[in-house]
């Protein structure tokens, strides 16, 4: 009786309404009861763990199901027809096609990242080069026509926001690497543009590095999916298919070289455009 009586005003107080409790000791019982009831929706540690395991199993089994079972599945050529129709009349620059793949990975697996080189690139890749070595700078400027080349003065300009961050890749020589990460880490880091020895974007010999990275586009896992832009609507079906295959191959390579005991699984892949719907395609 008391329990039922006390629950109603307890909820009322939660929703922010004024309530009048007639006697003092009822109010005390109320307070005592509120503490467990407000925690009831939260899971215990054990339950949370079980739920996580269950969800991982669900995601894994979803990853093993063939893509053609999905209701939105379409062959790529048909999907492209739909996407081009959805994209009609939009400015050319906005008609980008991209693929998004859901990754199923164990906890603690390092995020997937890699480089993809397309047979038909979307645009020329812009490279920024940070170096104090004049000789290296000259190579970058004259041989490879890099977008930005400079030393500390370039760092300062980026820090002040005078130069737009419109490059896709940045490279550096070792003597610049430290000052870069301390000064520009906050700006370049979140965009994945910070040169580091671990990523292989810091080297004494920049010429070689630039040549390797000229035609490649970096990608990395965000959350639990990987997104890569594979083409424009104006590309032919053949070109887009070739790009998708290149992306697939590079992603498989990245999965194989991932430093973990259990490699991640590739799950559902969708092909989409800027304004269009997402269509499930065969990717794995």
């Amino acid at each position: 009786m008391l329990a039922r009586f006390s629950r109603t005003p307890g909820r009322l107080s939660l929703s922010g309404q004024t309530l009048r409790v007639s006697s003092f000791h009822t109010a005390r019982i109320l307070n005592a009861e509120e503490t467990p009831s407000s925690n009831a929706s939260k899971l215990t540690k054990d339950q949370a763990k079980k739920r996580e395991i269950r969800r991982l199993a669900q995601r894994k089994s979803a990853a093993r199901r063939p893509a053609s079972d999905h209701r939105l599945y379409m062959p790529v050529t048909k999907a492209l027809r739909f996407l081009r129709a959805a994209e009609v009349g939009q400015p050319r620059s906005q008609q980008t096609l991209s693929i998004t793949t859901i990754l199923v990975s164990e906890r603690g697996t390092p995020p997937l990242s890699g480089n993809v080189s397309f047979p038909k690139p979307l645009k020329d890749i812009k490279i920024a080069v940070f170096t104090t070595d004049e000789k290296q700078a000259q190579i970058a400027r004259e041989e490879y026509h890099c977008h930005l080349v400079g030393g500390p003065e370039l760092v300062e300009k980026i820090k002040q926001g005078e130069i737009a961050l419109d490059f896709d890749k940045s490279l550096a020589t070792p003597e610049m690497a430290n000052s870069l990460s301390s000064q520009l880490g906050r700006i370049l880091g979140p965009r994945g543009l910070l040169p580091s020895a671990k990523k292989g974007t810091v080297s004494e010999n920049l010429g070689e590095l630039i040549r390797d990275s000229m035609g490649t586009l970096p990608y990395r896992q965000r959350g639990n999916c990987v997104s890569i832009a594979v083409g424009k609507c104006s590309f032919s079906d053949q070109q887009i298919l070739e790009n998708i295959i290149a992306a697939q191959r590079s992603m498989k390579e990245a999965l194989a070289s991932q430093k973990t005991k259990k490699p991640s699984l590739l799950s559902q892949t969708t092909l989409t455009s800027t304004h269009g719907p997402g269509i499930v395609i065969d990717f794995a």
Partner: protein
Amino acid sequence: MSRVTRQLKFLNKISAGTPKSQILVNPEKCAALNLTFQYQNHNGHMGARKFWREYLPTLQFYNPSLQIRVTRVKNEDKKDVGVPCILQVLAKDGNVTSTVEMRNKDKDVIMDEFLTIVEHEKVPESDIIEV
């Protein structure tokens, strides 16, 4: 409505939603369309925008080789009525063969007018794709 149903509805709207634009145009006489109108709706430019949004996706879907270019002009000034609101039909050699004035017209009226000037045939019932 679930996520997938919503997507299917979107796809079906493109392929089977607007029967009026389920046509196959003659690629010799109508190789490209150029539309010019305002971003803003004032001075009767709304029908043109609606025509683009409603009918052009389907038209493009059944005529993949048709080049459709939409040019939208920004014009905040309501008194400025100089912005054209026209639909041009281009032949294969790039010459403008006919023009439709879209100002102050409803999307259906524009579509009917377009159908009268363009040589076309209906997409056969069996070719209409529905997912």
